[in-house]
């Protein structure tokens, strides 16, 4: 009697497993491979002898090699610095509870929500030639020139990257760490390991998958960094991404842009493959523990002082530029240098008032303020698309971990991550404006592009949680009569509730902040917030600059509110395991 029953369960699972792969694969085929194929076609369309010649020529060029070298170098430095700041923070957040932790967690999440453009603008508002610090120094010492040279330096790029990506380490490593059984460390201590030895031999090796995952994400982010390098690096520093943008937009050298983007793709693809190999070897069936068990209070004044000092530094580093930005958006500083009369020195609401006006300068069809509603709509659509596509992908990956298909498709799902946003935008423009897929006028174009960017994040944050659920839980549910769908509904979904929220946050914030693809895809009459900011910031004049800062501030508040809401949800969430 039991034979047919088990058979049908197994075959059911098999059929469902196969269906799970379909939606993400169709999505990637249409909106990733098809546009990329078009770019590939472009790269050797005008070249005799095929694309290998184009590649060989590009690699033989010292300037291309220099750009490639610099891109790798700054990404490596940025990643190391980010880990240096993020890991102690992740430790504190994971292992202790202390007053104000939820607020600190939300605040340290802020930078990641910010578009690269706004991060660049924020550091400009704080440390740039017209920023608070230089203005103060000039005032105090009565200088005629800003004394601090921050913009157009490598330091500026590195600082902005660390600022931007520390959240990733805090979240990914911190989340994993908070569920790591502290008794593993106690066992090591009872065997004679001191704190340093415990860290080196037990904690770090166990955290390695999470650290490697976070470091890889950070590295790829830094490697394909666009807005920060474009604005803070200045003309002296160009990464591959910035060069692709220049070649596309300024020089319209599409074949070279295509070759460069393929070069970049090869690098990031290589990294992703290495990572997948690494993580397959490193992942362990860890028994995750509830956070209540793993977290304790800080005891002793020395521990409190050190933790407090570090957290204050972290918080200051991650909020001061944003505070400076917000403050600057309410404060005119430029009247001495600009045409007089446009904005007064001192507190002002002029920048905000101007957002609601349709000026005749033809920068916008609608007031800049309308971009807020547009962006929120796009972000909601992106969450639905990215989570809707990422969940089946993550389920398929974790339930068929050993299968060949899984090993093949896992790196495939990460491909959009390794593809520069500018390239994705370029691909959309080239491929999706003609039959059979004419989406030029579709409002879905932007959410599709954003979902593509967010997709790897969603999969990466869901798959480990799904994978960490003991298969015996699923078996137990199946034996109790649950169909595969009921197992999903009653076991997998509640258990990954937290991870789902994290994934949704990723999708939402990526959509709100995405600039690279948006810059190329967005339609002038429906600008997203970052697109509007970029248009404003690239115009001269104190009012445009101030409006950009005002819009950035609004984006900051909207994103912060969303993040805070999700943090709150997480605390009360029943899915917390």
């Amino acid at each position, binding site marked *: 009697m039991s034979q047919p029953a088990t058979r049908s369960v197994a075959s059911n699972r098999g059929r469902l497993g196969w269906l799970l792969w379909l939606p993400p694969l169709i999505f990637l085929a249409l909106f990733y491979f098809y546009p990329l194929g078009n770019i590939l076609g472009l790269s050797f369309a005008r070249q005799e002898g095929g694309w290998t010649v184009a590649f060989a020529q590009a690699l033989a060029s010292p300037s291309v090699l220099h750009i490639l070298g610099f891109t790798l170098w700054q990404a490596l430095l940025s990643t190391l610095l980010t880990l240096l700041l993020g890991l102690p923070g992740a430790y504190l957040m994971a292992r202790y509870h202390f007053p104000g932790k939820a607020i600190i967690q939300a605040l340290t999440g802020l930078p990641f929500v910010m578009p690269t453009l706004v991060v660049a603008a924020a550091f400009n508002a704080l440390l740039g030639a017209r920023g608070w610090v230089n203005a103060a120094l000039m005032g105090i010492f009565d200088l005629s020139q800003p004394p601090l040279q921050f913009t157009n330096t490598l330091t500026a790029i590195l600082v902005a990257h660390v600022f931007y990506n520390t959240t990733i380490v805090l979240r990914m490593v911190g989340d994993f760490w908070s569920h790591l059984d502290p008794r*593993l460390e*106690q*066992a090591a201590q009872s065997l004679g*390991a001191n704190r340093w030895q415990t860290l080196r*031999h037990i904690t770090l090796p166990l955290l390695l998958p999470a650290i490697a995952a976070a470091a890889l994400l950070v590295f790829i982010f830094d490697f394909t960094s666009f807005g920060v390098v474009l604005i803070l690096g200045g003309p002296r520093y160009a990464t591959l991404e910035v060069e692709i943008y220049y070649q596309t937009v300024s020089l319209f050298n599409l074949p070279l842009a295509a070759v460069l983007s393929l070069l970049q793709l090869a690098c990031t693809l290589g990294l992703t493959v290495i990572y997948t190999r690494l993580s397959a070897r*490193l992942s362990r*069936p860890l028994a995750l523990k509830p956070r209540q068990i793993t977290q304790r209070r800080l005891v002793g004044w020395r521990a409190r002082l050190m933790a407090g000092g570090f957290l204050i530094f972290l918080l200051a580093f991650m909020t001061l530029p944003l505070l400076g930005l917000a403050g600057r958006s309410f404060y005119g500083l430029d009247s001495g240098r600009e045409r007089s009369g446009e904005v007064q020195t001192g507190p002002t609401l002029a920048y905000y008032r101007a957002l609601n006006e349709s000026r005749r300068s033809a920068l916008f069809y609608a007031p800049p303020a309308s971009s807020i509603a547009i962006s929120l709509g796009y972000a909601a659509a992106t969450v639905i698309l990215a989570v809707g596509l990422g969940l089946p992908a993550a389920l398929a990956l974790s339930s068929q971990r050993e299968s060949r298909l899984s090993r093949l498709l896992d790196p495939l799902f990460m491909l959009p991550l390794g593809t520069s946003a500018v390239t994705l935008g370029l691909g959309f423009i080239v491929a999706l404006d003609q039959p059979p897929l004419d989406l030029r006028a579709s409002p879905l174009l932007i959410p599709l592009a954003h979902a593509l960017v967010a997709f790897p994040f969603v999969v990466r944050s869901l798959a480990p949680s799904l994978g960490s659920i003991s298969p015996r839980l699923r078996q137990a549910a199946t034996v109790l009569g649950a169909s595969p769908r009921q197992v999903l509904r009653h076991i997998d979904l509640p258990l990954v509730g937290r991870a789902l929220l994290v994934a949704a946050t990723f999708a939402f914030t990526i959509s709100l902040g995405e600039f690279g693809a948006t810059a190329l895809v967005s339609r002038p009459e429906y600008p997203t917030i970052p697109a509007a900011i970029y248009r404003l910031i690239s115009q001269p004049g104190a009012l445009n600059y101030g409006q950009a800062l005002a819009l950035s501030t609004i984006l900051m508040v909207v994103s912060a509110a969303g993040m805070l809401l999700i943090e709150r949800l997480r605390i009360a969430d029943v899915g917390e395991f």
Partner: protein
Amino acid sequence: MPGLEIQNVTRRFGSTIAVQDVSFQVAPGEIVAVVGPSGCGKSTLLSIVAGLLAPDSGDVRWDGQSLRHLPTHRRGFGLMFQDFVLFPHRNVFDNVAFGLQMAGMDTGQIQQRVAEALELVGLPGFGERDVNTLSGGEQQRVALARSIAPRPRLLMLDEPLGALDRALRERLVEDLRLILRRMHQTALYVTHDQEEAFALADRVVLMNAGRVEQIGAPMELYNHPETEFVARFLGLDNLLSGQRVCDEAGCRVETPLGRWPAPPGRTGAITVLLRPDAVHLGSSGDCTLSGTVQEVVFKGRSTRLELAANGVLLHFDFPSRAELPGVGEQICLRFSAGEALQFYDEAAGD
């Protein structure tokens, strides 16, 4: 006094007192089991001895030296967890070798010691195995090998068999006893299972609600449970409530089952334990107590009878024999009050 001394240790968590004024000693080579129901504070006590928790007051000493400021990793104590907590990223060899590596032992010596430890726990040649693929019993043995390999001066075991099924547990208790005895290992063994504690320990510390109820050799505890809680915990549930009445002739206790002499004390409510091992089957006409059999449970070598006597239910195990009375039949029991009865005054505070 050499060995481990626990002196008046108290630990609170917020307003609840997990461990209250606990004192006892573990002499070198001795195995002491701390037994009690879950939540009685035994695991907290273990964490305090291990140095994972600090006591609010009291002290833990080793060979007369206070351990208060000695961190866990320098105490030289081994600790074995209930669910083993093997390092998932290290194979069997590297798990067992961990403590030796921390001690800075050279490679050759480590290999020898790991091989010895694995041999001792019955897992020779398991070194290269992935700990995640081991069975529960094998994991337990690896955990034991890991904690004894550095030759700790005290081995603490926190419900080391709790995660295993009963048959395996009974076999492993035997193995564990042999291994600990053979090594003359000083050990502090925490469990909620009294049979495990009796099988392993030289002395048993029975805890309840953070406090020590009784300390003694297993036999002593079983034969003379000092409190009603100890009696109940050890499964001695033939308890009668009675009244103590005293006059010039002395004291006696009056129960539904009869009237017996009692030790002098306060007049009033008293609980009487009827120790099952001191009660024998009698022939009719020579009964100290008679009742009706309610239930017969054959358990192999022994048979458990439930009987009702004057409205009180009692349980006794007798050697299985054909002539044992069946359900509904009369049964006649014989015992001497001096041997079979133990008296517990109603506790004033509780």
